[in-house]
């Protein structure tokens, strides 16, 4: 293919990008932005897929099979929690007008200049290898297309090297693209649109080559894989273990890609800085993984096809994507695919270099420039254009560094292995960022130590050995360790060997980074500004909802100075519109004010930070404002106040919960009372009913006798005897009700003392012996001589026995009545058994007889005798003695009532539990 054709197509493509950006900018200016939607947002995030994905994945798959996947699985894994994590970072960044990942870290830790410098160095040095692989991919695809054998670029003088001209072209392109706007603070709507378009193009191109290989050259997936499976070396790629991957390597690859997708400078730039609406995150959290899935489906088939087409080697696996269509004679398709690869590489280079240049200017260059300058002099010359100049120089510098790295080392390594070096560097931001947004106690010193240690270990373990192999450093270090110390070998740091260099480096750097971050944070103090920034970052939702910003510093400045400052850094037009907006919102007239209020100073600082970074903005505002920093105590007071409010509302919540609980308890108590009331009413109804029966009968008989004076004597005697019986019954009933009342209401009156249960039985039995004999009952008392010691009240227990005996007498057989009273000591306590030979109690009735007023009606005997309270009283007394009353009976076999009482022993004489209340 003619080089001129390729070059002109590339130029045409670039022109198309400019056109898209121009359209997007125009639409945005007209208020009809095309970039403010979730799909474009997700596509712009796909800048994650670079030449690494486009060419490198296939190369990686050709050597480790599905080992290329963790790079995409990591982001896919993390995407579901973007809604929490990324959204929080976006909200923080918007409120602080954060311009880059380095700015984010510097701002969180008290707008520290030093930390910003370190973070910038980590980012720039970490990303340079990554940019170099894009240069490599573009230049080698160019070589392939024009038909040059992939000559080593290292041996070509630089002025003949195509890669250098590609680098220069890219620099020019990036400058034109990224620094078109004079105002560096504005969002790059055009850039985002162009990136989204590139993402679409590279996806289409990759799917095209994938479909071509799978369905054009072969007969679908099944065909490729079954043919591949026939070759043992290819079959090995279908499993992870045979491709040399274990769980430890796998885990680190996932972890690194997870950190990269959020913290790589270009990812942070598109996902956070260029974000137009935080709500877009929720859609992007499934659209972006879907994009990744689509672009990865054909990677393994292409790799397998490449291995089968070029079995004897000689073709770099990283270039299969191009070599396959070229070898098959499809030049136009190859050109289209190369354009996809070009778009993948350029999008990464553009965004990464823009993000890095912003970082370098705001965090490295500006703090040094502005530190000792007085900006109070009114100077018509705006500094914002010179800022852009500096930024352009940075772009060129970064790209030349990347070219140098490519020239020196990049060529000997595969795309993915160099890319992973960058991922490991970026992962060093993880502790400082994650801790920064969730852990208030994290301090600036902790972040500085953690980041520095992690960075040094990374530098020693990964890029340093690549320099060794190019001969820049003595190779003895690799085998013998730094300074001859065996523990300091880059690929086996601290003696840990057996894993890949990336897994090793990631483990050591991140472990020690995190450790240092936590330990140093716990042992250092935060400055007031750090405390307030920490509070702002961690509790961003509080500030957003409440809008309660507290004044970090009491600063005073002249309105005139602020205006001059804003003019110089933001340009006159923009600063004028910002100040007018401020006047309108706060209803003030700045031209009448001499001294600026704290609000205005904060407003100016935030907007300056949007242009030049938090650290630089702090310095230049510091140069015009007289500052009385709030003392630590005051700072705490302010924080304490917000804390108090939070605590107060928490206390209120707690109180209302308590109130609810109390209400519930009251309700329950009320229910109980109602139930008791009902029982009482029932009781009274039953008692009065019981009382009325004998009274009615007495009344009736008395009346008859009163009316019939000359009633026969025998009849009168009979009536009188009934009256007496009924009166007795009445008396008994009343006595029992009184007893019950007494027993139930005053259980504390129950005086318990050690006593002999056998004696109780004997006395009760003797008292009733005559009655039983009169009724023709044969009584029998069965007791042993030995006492049965229990703990109880003599009178009450006597009442129990008497009640049971009376009951037995009442029910004993009329003709051959028998009542047995047994008292003995058993294993579980003292027992009293009262047995009769009456009609017995049916099982259904057995459950009821201990209730109040239960009377067993007997058809033979007619009206039941007794009040129905006897057994209930007995039961209550036994319960108060912690005993048990039970009945055993079968119909027509008599009944046996059994009382069980706990035994009394000398040992526990003091420890006897009080009777149940």
């Amino acid at each position, binding site marked *: 293919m003619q080089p001129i054709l390729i070059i002109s197509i590339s130029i045409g493509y670039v022109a198309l990008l400019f056109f898209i950006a121009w359209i997007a900018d125009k639409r945005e200016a007209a208020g009809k932005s095309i970039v403010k939607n979730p799909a474009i947002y997700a596509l712009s995030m796909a800048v994650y897929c670079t030449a690494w994905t486009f060419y490198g994945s296939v190369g990686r798959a050709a050597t480790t099979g599905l080992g290329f996947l963790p790079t995409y699985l990591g982001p896919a894994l993390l995407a*579901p929690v973007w*809604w929490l994590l990324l959204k929080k970072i976006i909200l923080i960044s918007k409120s602080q007008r954060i311009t880059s990942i380095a700015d984010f870290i510097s701002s969180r830790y008290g707008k520290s200049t030093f930390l910003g410098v370190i973070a910038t160095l980590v980012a720039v040095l970490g990303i340079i290898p990554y940019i170099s692989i894009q240069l490599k991919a573009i230049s080698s695809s160019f070589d392939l297309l024009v038909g040059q054998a992939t000559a080593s670029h290292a041996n070509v003088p630089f002025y003949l090297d195509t890669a250098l001209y590609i680098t220069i072209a890219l620099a020019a392109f990036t400058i034109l693209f990224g620094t078109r706007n004079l105002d560096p603070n504005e969002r790059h709507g055009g850039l985002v649109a162009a990136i989204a378009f590139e993402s679409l193009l590279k996806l289409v191109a990759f799917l095209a080559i994938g479909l071509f290989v799978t369905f054009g050259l072969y007969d679908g997936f099944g065909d490729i*894989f079954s043919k591949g499976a026939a070759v043992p070396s290819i079959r090995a790629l279908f499993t992870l273990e045979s491709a040399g991957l274990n769980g430890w390597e796998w885990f680190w690859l996932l972890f690194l890609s997870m950190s990269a997708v959020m913290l790589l400078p270009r990812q942070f730039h598109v996902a956070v800085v260029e974000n137009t609406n935080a709500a877009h995150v929720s859609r992007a959290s499934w659209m972006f993984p879907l994009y990744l899935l689509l672009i990865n489906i054909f990677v393994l088939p292409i790799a397998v096809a490449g291995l089968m087409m070029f079995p004897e080697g000689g073709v770099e696996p990283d270039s299969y994507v191009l070599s396959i269509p070229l070898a098959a004679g499809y030049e136009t398709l190859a050109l289209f695919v190369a354009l996809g690869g070009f778009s993948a590489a350029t999008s990464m280079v553009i965004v990464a270099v823009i993000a890095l240049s912003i970082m370098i200017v705001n965090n490295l260059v500006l703090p040094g420039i502005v530190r000792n300058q007085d900006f109070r002099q009114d100077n018509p010359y705006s500094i914002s254009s010179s800022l852009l100049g500096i930024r352009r120089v940075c772009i060129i510098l970064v790209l030349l560094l990347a070219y140098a790295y490519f020239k020196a080392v990049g060529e000997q390594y595969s795309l993915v292995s160099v890319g992973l070096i960058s991922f490991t560097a970026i992962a060093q931001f993880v502790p400082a960022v994650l801790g920064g947004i969730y852990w208030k106690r994290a301090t600036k010193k902790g972040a500085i130590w953690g980041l520095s240690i992690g960075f040094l270990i990374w530098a020693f373990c990964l890029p340093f050995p690549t320099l060794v192999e190019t001969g820049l450093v003595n190779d003895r270090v690799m085998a013998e360790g730094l300074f001859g110390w065996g523990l300091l070998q880059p690929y086996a740091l601290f003696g840990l060997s057996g894993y890949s260099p990336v897994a090793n480096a990631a483990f050591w750097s991140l472990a020690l980074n995190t450790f240092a971050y936590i330990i140093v944070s716990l042992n250092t103090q935060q400055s007031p500004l750090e405390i307030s920034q920490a509070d702002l970052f961690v509790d961003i939702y509080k500030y957003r909802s409440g809008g309660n910003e507290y004044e970090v510093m009491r600063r005073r400045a002249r309105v005139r100075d602020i205006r001059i400052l804003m003019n110089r850094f933001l340009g006159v037009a923009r600063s004028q519109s910002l100040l007018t907006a401020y006047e309108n919102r706060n209803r003030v007239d700045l031209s009448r004010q001499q001294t600026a209020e704290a609000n205005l100073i904060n407003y100016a600082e935030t907007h300056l930070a949007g242009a030049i970074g938090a650290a630089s903005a702090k310095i230049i505002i510091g140069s015009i404002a007289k500052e009385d920093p709030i003392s630590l105590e005051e700072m705490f007071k302010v924080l304490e106040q917000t804390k108090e409010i939070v605590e107060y509302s928490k206390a209120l919540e707690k109180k209302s919960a308590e109130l609810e609980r109390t209400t519930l308890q009251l309700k329950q108590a009320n229910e109980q009372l109602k139930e008791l009331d009902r029982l009482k009413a029932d009781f009274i109804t039953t008692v009065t009913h019981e009382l009325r029966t004998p009274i009615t009968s007495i009344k009736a008989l008395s009346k008859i006798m009163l009316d019939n004076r000359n009633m026969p004597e025998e009849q009168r005697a009979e009536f009188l005897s009934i009256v007496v019986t009924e009166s007795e019954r009445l008396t008994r009933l009343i006595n029992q009700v009184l007893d019950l009342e007494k027993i139930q209401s005053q259980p504390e009156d129950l005086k318990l003392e050690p006593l002999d249960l056998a004696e109780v039985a004997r006395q009760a039995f003797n008292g009733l012996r005559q009655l039983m004999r009169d009724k023709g009952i044969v009584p029998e008392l069965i007791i042993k001589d030995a006492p049965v010691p229990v703990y109880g009240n003599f009178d009450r227990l006597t009442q129990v026995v008497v009640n049971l005996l009376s009951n037995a007498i009442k029910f004993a057989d009329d003709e051959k009545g028998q009542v047995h009273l047994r008292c003995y000591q058993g294993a579980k306590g003292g027992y009293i058994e009262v047995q009769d030979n009456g009609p017995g109690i049916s099982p259904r009735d057995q459950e009821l007889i201990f209730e109040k007023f239960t009377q067993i009606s007997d058809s033979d005997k007619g009206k039941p005798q007794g009040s129905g309270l006897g057994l209930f009283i007995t039961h209550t007394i036994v319960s108060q003695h912690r005993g048990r009353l039970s009945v055993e009976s079968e119909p027509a076999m008599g009944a046996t009532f059994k009382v069980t009482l706990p035994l009394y022993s000398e040992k526990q004489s003091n420890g006897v539990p009080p009777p149940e209340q």
Partner: protein
Amino acid sequence: MTTNDRSLKLISIFLLGVMLFNFPLVSLFSREGLLLGLPKLYWYFFVVWGGIIALTAWVARPAKAKKD
């Protein structure tokens, strides 16, 4: 679905993914042999991946698009 509910669900999806995409579960499918013409591991990754995307889309769908 409250904000808190949604957060918990998304975190659960994340944890589920971490489990499914790591050893030792991955090694269960890292077996030789093809299933319907494709390597077993290939099936496993892409099916689980698609499942996680679908779950995320369902949980993270904007409030107004919800039926309840």
